[in-house]
């Protein structure tokens, strides 16, 4: 008797005893050779799983179950508003990052030959006139922001009028209100960045609003606007809010909002 252990996985011996045609033999030998080196079997299993997943029969949705699609299809755009505002946020984030390469939040005198133009104003003017696709980029950023805000408002109305905020979704409703407020703050801080007349006087309104908060008004005005009239500190702070603080906060809150929707499921139309 041999002292050597019997090899249960001697694939060559297995190949010999199988009595295969040359084509089959070559195929199997190649497969074994590749599998020993690349663990092909794992990837084949993955593919197999994918194949069965793709060919699975889809479960019936609520509206299919009750044959409501013919009555409900025209409401579906309203049900997609939440997802749409997320996508608009992504569009705004990408175009905003590209704009950030060229924008500078400085209220110092700018280089453009316009009376009273600051650096911030002239970088925006440069983006719009000199930069390739810059005009479109700013337009895209602005429209994505406007459309996102509109979509968020309409999304809230849809949720309200279909009663989708009811138990067990109260917490997500409140998170949604926080997100809506943050979206408006996002819009406001961005509105101030070009530092044109509208931006300056909107900043003035903001300062006055925070000053009218009882007790802590002056403190809030100094914290948020860096003083009691719009200027370099205001622009700097709005820039940091817009490109640093709010993106992190809003992205996190959106993730929580969507995570809750995923966990709690969709409140479909009844």
């Amino acid at each position, binding site marked *: 008797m041999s002292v050597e252990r019997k090899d249960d996985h001697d694939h060559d011996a297995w190949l010999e005893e199988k009595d295969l045609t040359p084509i089959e033999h070559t195929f199997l030998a190649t497969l074994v050779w590749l599998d020993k080196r690349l663990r092909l079997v794992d990837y084949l299993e993955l593919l197999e799983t994918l194949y069965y997943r793709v060919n699975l029969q889809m479960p019936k949705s609520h509206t299919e179950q009750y044959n409501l699609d013919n009555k409900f299809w025209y409401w579906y755009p309203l049900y997609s508003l939440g997802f749409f505002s997320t996508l608009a946020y992504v569009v705004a984030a990408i175009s905003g990052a590209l704009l950030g390469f060229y924008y500078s939040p400085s209220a110092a005198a700018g280089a453009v030959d316009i009376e*009273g133009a600051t650096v911030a104003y002239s970088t925006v*003017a440069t983006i719009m006139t000199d930069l390739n696709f810059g005009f479109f980029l700013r337009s895209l950023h602005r429209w994505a922001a406007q459309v996102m805000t509109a979509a968020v408002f309409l999304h809230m109305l849809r949720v309200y009028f279909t009663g989708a905020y009811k138990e067990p979704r109260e917490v997500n409703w409140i998170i949604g209100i926080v997100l809506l407020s943050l979206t408006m703050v996002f819009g406001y801080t961005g*509105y101030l960045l070009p530092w044109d007349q509208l931006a300056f006087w909107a900043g003035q309104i903001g300062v006055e609003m925070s000053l009218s908060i009882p007790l802590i008004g002056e403190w809030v005005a100094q914290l948020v606007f860096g003083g009691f009239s719009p200027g370099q500190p205001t622009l700097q702070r709005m820039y940091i809010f817009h490109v640093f603080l709010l993106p992190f906060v809003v992205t996190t809150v959106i993730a929580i909002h969507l995570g809750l929707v995923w966990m709690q499921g969709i409140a479909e139309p009844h």
Partner: protein
Amino acid sequence: MADDEHTDDAARTDGTGIVPPDDETPTWRERKERTTGLSRLTYEYFERSRREDQDLREESDYVERDVLAFPVWPHELIRNLALTSFFVGMIFFLASTLPPHLGAPANPSQTPSIILPDWYLYWSFGLLKLGPLNPDLAILGGEKLMADRTYGVVANLVVVGFIAIVPFLNKGSARRPVEQPFWASVGVMGVVFAVTISALSMKNLVPLDSSLLFDLTFLVPPIAGAITYAVLKTMREGYMYDLNRRYYKLRPPK
């Protein structure tokens, strides 16, 4: 104590100190049942809720009303992707056809005749102009309790606060506006008020007498709400009529 541990050599033969399970080893279920205090309460609650869920599933004849939620994947997400990819295309279309305007550079010494924030802040801006509603108290000799500006900021907080507590005021399984005419009309009143208060915020641009505009701002929303309420009540009567008409199975004609 130390001696006891040293006598049990069998448990440490593999060097890890892990005891292999035998007949005496409690299952996880038994371990959970044996716990006390908060973990025991947690265990009991989870068992109850699991049983409740299972009972509901078994007893349900799966009418619409029993269904609380549907999974996001696949239907909702696929449908949303299809619709919103079109909407994103619309953003690009708008961006390329209607580029934004860049106004004159900031000039602190020249106040423009029209100062407005972006459109989505009009409602908030309008709430800052509620000065005439700020009560002046006789006790204080006609003085106001709050400055008008403070009053406006408080009005903002009240509106947002009310919207936040809606889920705790409106409970029950009613979903459609016809099923809850009151809350639907509150919603319509809110939407119309958002529009009228926005109009008030730019009253120098609206071709109406400003005191008339102020009155309309507060008169139109309740009227719209009342109309909505009446319409939804009527619609509900119609629904109930349809339902009642089909409720009894009638004897077929001879």
